[in-house]
C-alpha cells in the first residue's frame, strides 16, 4: 500500500471509531433510556428531550468525525496533524458542553410516584479537565511538529545541495 493510501485508510478508520463512540453509542443509549416502559409506566425521556439531545449529538458528532478523518490522514509528527488535534479537542469540548445545554447532563426520569433527576455536571467537568490536559499535549505536538518539519526541510535542502556538489553543478555554475 502506498503512503497516501495508508494515510487515507487510517483517516477513515479513525473517523469510523469516532462515529461509533461519539455518535452511535450515545444515540443507542438515549434511545434505550427514552423507550423504557415497565409495567405500563413510561419512565423514559420525553420525545422533545430526546430530539434535542439527538440533534446535538449528531451535529457535533459529524464535525468530530470529519476532524478525526483529517487528523488520521495527516502524516505523523506534522504540524497539520497537531492543528487538527487542537481542533478536535475544541470540538470535543463543545460536544461535552452540548450534553449540558441539551439537557442530557441532567436527566429527569418519571415514574409512578414522582421522578428521579441524575445530575452529571460534575462528571462532565472532570471530562473537560481531562480534555484540557490533552490540549497541552496537542500544543506540545504542534511545537514539535513545526520543529520536526523545519529540521526535515533543512535536511532535504542540504541533501539537494550535496547532490548538486557531487554532480559538479555548483562548480560549473
Amino acid at each position, binding site marked *: 500500500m502506498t503512503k497516501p493510501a495508508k494515510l487515507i485508510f487510517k483517516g477513515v478508520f479513525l473517523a469510523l471509531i469516532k462515529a461509533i463512540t461519539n455518535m452511535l453509542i450515545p444515540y443507542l443509549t438515549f434511545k434505550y433510556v427514552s423507550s423504557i416502559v415497565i409495567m405500563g409506566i413510561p419512565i423514559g425521556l420525553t420525545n422533545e428531550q430526546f430530539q434535542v439531545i439527538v440533534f446535538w449529538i449528531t451535529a457535533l458528532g459529524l464535525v468530530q468525525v470529519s476532524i478525526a478523518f483529517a487528523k488520521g490522514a495527516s502524516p505523523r509528527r506534522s504540524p497539520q496533524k497537531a492543528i487538527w488535534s487542537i481542533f478536535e479537542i475544541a470540538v470535543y469540548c463543545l460536544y461535552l458542553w452540548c450534553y449540558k445545554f441539551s439537557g442530557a447532563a441532567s436527566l429527569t426520569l418519571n415514574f409512578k410516584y414522582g421522578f428521579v433527576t441524575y445530575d452529571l455536571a460534575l*462528571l462532565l467537568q472532570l471530562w473537560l479537565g481531562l480534555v484540557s490536559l490533552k490540549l497541552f499535549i496537542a500544543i506540545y505536538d504542534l511545537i514539535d511538529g513545526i520543529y520536526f518539519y523545519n529540521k526535515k526541510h533543512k535536511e532535504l535542502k542540504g541533501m539537494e545541495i550535496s547532490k548538486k556538489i557531487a554532480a559538479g553543478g555548483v562548480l560549473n555554475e
Partner: protein
Amino acid sequence: MNVGRIPRQIVYGIVLLIQICLTLVSILGGLSSVMILDPNFENIMVKNFNANFGPGINQLNFTFILNNTGVYDFHNISFNINLTMSNATDSYNVLNSNVTISEIKAEQKFEEVISFNDSDFNFPIDFNYTTDYSISLQIIIEFVYSLDLIKFRIFLNFTDSDLGDLGGL
C-alpha cells in the same frame, strides 16, 4: 524512538490512564444508576403509613426503604419530608423536616421507620381537626453516587389514595 519525545509519551500515557479510569467510572456509574432506578418501586420504597391527627396527639410514621443495588456507596444522603393538608379554601404546611444519613454502602439496604410526633408538627393554633382535609406528602431524597460524581434527586409525591395503596392512613 526520539529521546526528546519520551516525556511527551509518559505524559500521554498518564492522560490515557486517567481517561480509561474515567471511562470505566462513567460506564459503571451510568449503568448502575439505571439499576438503582427501579420503576417497580422496590429500591426506593415507602410503606406502612400510620398517621393520627388531633390536638396534642399528632403523629406520623412510615417505613422508608432505600436499597443501594449499585456498585458505589451513596454519600451525603438527605431526606426532606413535607406534609401539606388542604381543603377547599385553605392549605397548611404542617410538617417540614430534614433527616440526614452519612452513607449507605454498596449492596446494602437502608430500612427504617421514620417517626414524627406532636412536637415536629406545626399546626396553626386555630386548625380545625374536624374538617376533611386532603393530604399530600412530599419526600425529596438527595445523595451523591459514583465517587460523588453523580448527584441524584428523587422526588416522591403521595396523595391520599397513594398512601392508602401503600398501606396507611
